[in-house]
């Protein structure tokens, strides 16, 4: 593998002009897809920006007009934005962290050979395949219900009083559900990472007298770092948009009004398209800033990628 790569790069070196011309062919092939995706993603965004400058309440169709930056003033001076940003960060951050940890545990267990491994793996993946709304309903009625829910039945067996999850612990309710749903996703990525580990090196380590804990800390974990980063990044992107469990279970009370639910509320209950669009634009801006900073400083995958390009 390495030998062929070397021969390709060190072999016949084309002249600069030729190489430049040749590089246009792949670019030309990519171009239609690029234009298509720019049209598909950027036109709606530009439209959203225009909407955000309008005074537009759906129930007052005769009063649509430009009010320029008034919606943004409402976003930044109103009481909704900062608490909502905080809820988003809390719920997303905690859920990603928990599902990563539990996912890592399951991945380590499933990395061993045992009878019925395939069945166990399929079963563990199932929560991720359940549709979010269905999952929220399952948790509302069968798991967390205060009278007939399985979790409260379990607590009852232990002699503990039932817990009113939705009323008393709305944030925890959402985090439990999201962790349940995203653990399989994290596990899949980390399992792939574990299986790509070179067994010979692990064997050599154990011959050299490293125990399982040391091997894990100094061999496996550094190897997994890139996989953990990717899992965290993808998980964060997906969880930022989470909506169904909040709409079905907590209705945005008690610190569960994330940005995506707030947007829904402004657009479909407030029926205020202008304000909802302004919230949307600000959310995109904040996400982009945070994502860029995180990618540049925290994630080695991308930092090394940049170094290699330069």
């Amino acid at each position: 593998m390495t030998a062929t790569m070397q021969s390709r790069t060190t072999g016949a070196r084309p002249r600069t002009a030729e190489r430049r011309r040749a590089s246009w062919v792949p670019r030309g092939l990519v171009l239609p897809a690029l234009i298509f995706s720019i049209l598909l993603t950027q036109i709606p965004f530009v439209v959203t920006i225009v909407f955000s400058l309008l005074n537009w309440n759906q129930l007052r169709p005769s009063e649509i007009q430009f009010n320029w930056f008034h919606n943004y003033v409402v976003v930044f001076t109103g009481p909704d934005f900062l608490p909502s940003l905080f809820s988003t960060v809390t719920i997303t951050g905690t859920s990603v962290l928990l599902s990563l940890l539990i996912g890592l545990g399951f991945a380590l267990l499933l990395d061993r050979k045992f009878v019925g491994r395939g069945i166990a793996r399929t079963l563990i993946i199932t929560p991720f395949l359940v549709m979010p709304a269905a999952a929220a309903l399952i948790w509302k009625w069968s798991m967390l219900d205060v009278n007939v829910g399985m979790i409260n039945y379990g607590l009852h067996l232990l002699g503990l009083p039932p817990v009113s999850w939705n009323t008393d612990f709305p944030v925890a309710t959402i985090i439990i559900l999201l962790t349940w749903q995203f653990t399989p996703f994290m596990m899949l990525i980390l399992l792939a990472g574990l299986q790509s580990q070179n067994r010979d090196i692990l064997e050599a380590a154990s011959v050299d007298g490293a125990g399982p804990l040391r091997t894990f800390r100094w061999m496996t974990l550094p190897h997994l770092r890139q996989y953990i980063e990717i899992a965290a990044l993808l998980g964060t992107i997906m969880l930022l948009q989470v909506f169904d469990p909040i709409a079905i279970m907590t209705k945005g009370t008690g610190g569960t009004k994330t940005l995506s639910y707030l947007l829904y509320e402004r657009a479909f209950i407030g029926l205020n398209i202008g304000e909802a669009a302004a919230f949307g634009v600000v959310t995109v801006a904040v996400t982009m800033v945070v994502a860029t900073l995180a990618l540049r400083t925290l994630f080695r995958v991308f930092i090394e990628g940049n170094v290699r390009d330069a």
Partner: protein
Amino acid sequence: MKSLITKRRLLSSVVILATATVLAGCAGAGGGASTGGTVQLTLATVDNPQMKDMEQLKGTFEKENPGIKVNFVQMEEGDLRAAVTADVASGAGQYDIVTVGAYEVPQWGANGWLTDLTPALKADKSYDVGDLFPPVRDALSVKGDLYAVPFYGESSILMYNKTMFAKAGITISDHPTWQEVAADAKVLNTPDHAGICLRGKPGWGDLFAPLTTVVQTFGGSWYDNNWNAQVDSPQFADAVNFYVNLLKDAGEADPVSNSFTECLNLVNSGKVAMWYDASVAASILEDPKTSKVAGQMGYVHAPVFKTKESGWLWSWNLAIPKTTKHVDAATKFVEWATSKEYEQLVGKTLGWTRVPPGARTSTYSIPEYKKAAAAFAPITLDVMKSVNPKQPGVNPQPWVGIQYVTIPEFQDVGNQCAQFVADAIAGRSTVGDALAKCQPIAQAAGDKQKK
């Protein structure tokens, strides 16, 4: 190598599943087109039992009217309101018939979003428009024109489990006060069952429907006659404090999860002794096929404090958006579903307790219905006649409606305030804090009416 294959198989199955999910989602959104001479009507409705009955019986209509097919899209109340508002207001025209609440009909009618049904209904002598309940008809009219017809109407009543009352050795009067109900609820609150079930789910149509009637009978109101918000008035605070404390002392567990359906389940399974909610629940509780407490329930007027009555007035109505391309077919179906014949059809095929109540006066003189619904028909008729949507509270108000304010901003105001009150129910904040946060939101909406 083997593991590689399984991995690949796994991946492909994930992809297939994901695609299937997406496709299924797309299939649900379409519809409404006419194919090969048949008119396909799309009807968006709440997922209440009466609407499910309508879907079950639509075959009769389709048989009588070959060439018209009706497709039902059922949603939860809040989702329906959002979906239909977005569709009608933006003119998307996805739905041919929609169920619209009494709150929206006058507003949407005035906006020109709904088809005026007056000429069609008056032309059809057998339909008998005059038979529709007068207060309900008034609530659905804009300047005398009818923009929707009631499918069923309801008020709110107090339902109680007679067996539990007998066991506790207490009785209840036909017109109880809230103070009496609170005292009874505390007596009836045992480890086996809660004293009372009250809605706590945040939402103007969930928590704030019963709560607003409590506010009104305590002497409070959302607005005074000049559209000044009254949320920070002592009467409003007294009422909300009373409601929150009643829930804490003798209410069901996990109230923030609960609205109509959840409370219905609790009453049905004998987990609560009393329930203050929509009168339409009585017909479900008395259906021996689905209810475990049929025959055990008693029904009395909504509890009061400073007013004589405090039941709400609500109706689910069928309306035809202006954007539909099939006005004639849609009108035919709307007339059929709200006709006297439909009531007979429901009674004969599904049982007389399942006849949609509170829409037609004549319903209450059908002998079979009177017999089957003896437990709740008289009180429903009585309450529906005695509520006054023009002035439900102690003081006059500038809108017509009981448990809601007929302005576009109210669903937003009610929703945000319900979330604050839910925080107070959970003990994360006080009622005072919640109402202090609600007052400016309500005032901003009131200011728009002053213009």
